[in-house]
């Protein structure tokens, strides 16, 4: 078990964004988190990465309780994420963006940087070549020197994945990676996520593109109004009446669905 979420609750004032959500993710699988807008999926990501602390409940990563740990330490432990609304460092080049991702796997400080010690130069060289490998890996081989702001939308999404991979995560959280992508880009993304899985990295995926989720995920959990309403294989989820109702509404209630 890589990640266990136990009865996680998150309230914002009187509003309960998540209540008693539990699930666990096995080593090496692609786990999907789906649900209608506002169901609490991104809030779940923010709890796992410690952007928010849970109101109650536990989040356990590789046997360690990671509740309340500072976000940068979560990354160091091996959880890294991408963002729903792309958050690259806009004025940096693609290469620099990925190099920032390697921050927690490198250590040179002010003095070794200023005096260019041997270990600092070697480390910098290592970071740079790994960054370029990762750019190659996500299909941005020729764009190392391009300022990330001027990359195409789909490329920016893949660059964000490369940046997250640079922190050598054991668990990768992808927040709607296919949003705004066309069909070709989506199928490229599908292969990319599969290749990430082949590297032994566990993936937790939030996605609205149902065909992609159903093809890609080993298991899926469905959230609605902050509660988990189903969990299972794609086939089970597709036939679950609660899920169908959550997505399409029940017949009496909404005839336009």
């Amino acid at each position: 078990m890589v990640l266990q979420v136990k009865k996680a609750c998150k309230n914002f004032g009187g509003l309960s964004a998540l209540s008693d959500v539990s699930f666990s993710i096995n080593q090496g699988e692609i786990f999907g988190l789906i649900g209608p807008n506002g169901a609490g999926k991104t809030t779940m990501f923010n709890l796992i990465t410690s952007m928010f602390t849970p109101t109650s409940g536990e989040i356990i990563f590789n046997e360690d309780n990671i509740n309340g740990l500072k976000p940068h330490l979560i990354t160091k432990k091996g959880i890294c994420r991408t963002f729903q609304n792309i958050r690259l460092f806009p004025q940096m080049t693609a290469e620099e963006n990925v190099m920032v991702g390697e921050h927690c796997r490198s250590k040179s400080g002010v003095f070794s940087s200023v005096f260019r010690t041997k270990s600092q130069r070697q480390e910098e060289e290592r970071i740079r070549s790994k960054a370029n490998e990762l750019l190659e890996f996500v299909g941005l081989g020729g764009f190392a020197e391009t300022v990330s702001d001027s990359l195409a939308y789909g490329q920016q999404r893949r660059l964000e994945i490369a940046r997250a991979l640079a922190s050598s995560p054991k668990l990768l959280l992808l927040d709607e990676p296919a949003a705004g992508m066309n069909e070709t880009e989506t199928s490229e993304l599908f292969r990319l996520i599969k290749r990430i899985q082949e590297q032994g990295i566990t993936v937790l995926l939030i996605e609205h593109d149902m065909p992609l989720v159903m093809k890609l995920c080993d298991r899926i959990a469905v959230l609605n109004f902050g509660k988990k309403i189903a969990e299972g294989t794609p086939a089970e989820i597709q036939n679950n009446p609660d899920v169908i109702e959550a997505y399409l509404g029940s017949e009496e209630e909404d005839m336009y669905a």
Partner: protein
Amino acid sequence: MLAELINPYYLQVASFILINIILGVSIYITLSTGQLSLANAGFMGIGAYTSALLTLNFDLPIIVGIMAGTLLAGVFGILIGIPTLRLQGVYLAIVTLGFGEVIRVIFVNWESMTKGAVGLSGIPHMGRELLNTVKDLGFDPKVLGLQNNQFVFLAIFLILLAVTVSIIAFFRRQNRSRVGRAFAAIKLDEKAAESMGINITYYKVLAFAQGAMVAGFAGALFAHVLAYISPADFAYHRAVEILIFAVFGGSEVIWGPVFGALFLTVMPEVLRFISEYRYMIYGLIIIIMMAVRPQGLIDVNILNWVKLKTSKRRQKHGTSSQKSM
């Protein structure tokens, strides 16, 4: 012949340009993590008073005083940097401006120590001390054809030049390293930087302390170049002046505030009649720059353009020593 070229007045102006460049660098460092600190005039004052008092009261060598002033300013930088971590943008600016005023008020009112608004005079002068040392060693500036005061101002200028170049080199190297990338990441998107494993608390306080140390260092140099300081030297006007270096020159690249400090120190000297209106002009500059060119005169694009031009010229002249970066 050398003697005629060396005009103490020009050297004096050049020395103040260099001190202002160091101050420009100090605000640039904190800005490179996206924090706007207006406390640098206060830190400058701490550096200046610390060094001046140590050398006046305890007869310490100037260099020890300068180091103590720099370090104490750095300590205050950490003390201010930690509680203000949660403040962003204009709120941070207000608090740091307030801190600068508090420091000034302390200098004015702690009369037993600082002689209040009258200020400290008779601070050991860097150039003259050096002249005495050199003379004790049996060297006479006349050998070089220099008069004593020419030697004094030339020595100050050269020391400051070396120091300024070292500081700029220091931060240019830091910028192009893991630390510099962390600074830039925090400036561009704090939340994303944190998610990428950057300890933002550490780097923001580091930048704050570095900025404070550089400002304190500039202050200590100022004290020993001028030999006279008073609280008015580190007041609100100074804070605005330092800010203007970054606003006018730009704060994206280190050359921005360097250029800003250079230009804005030379201008009132060259155009004497302007100097009376300088604060009006500063106000105008802020408004115009914010409206027309918020990133300042020197930004990455300008720098790349200059690099392109100079590399082309180099190729034309046949020297193919094109080193990367």
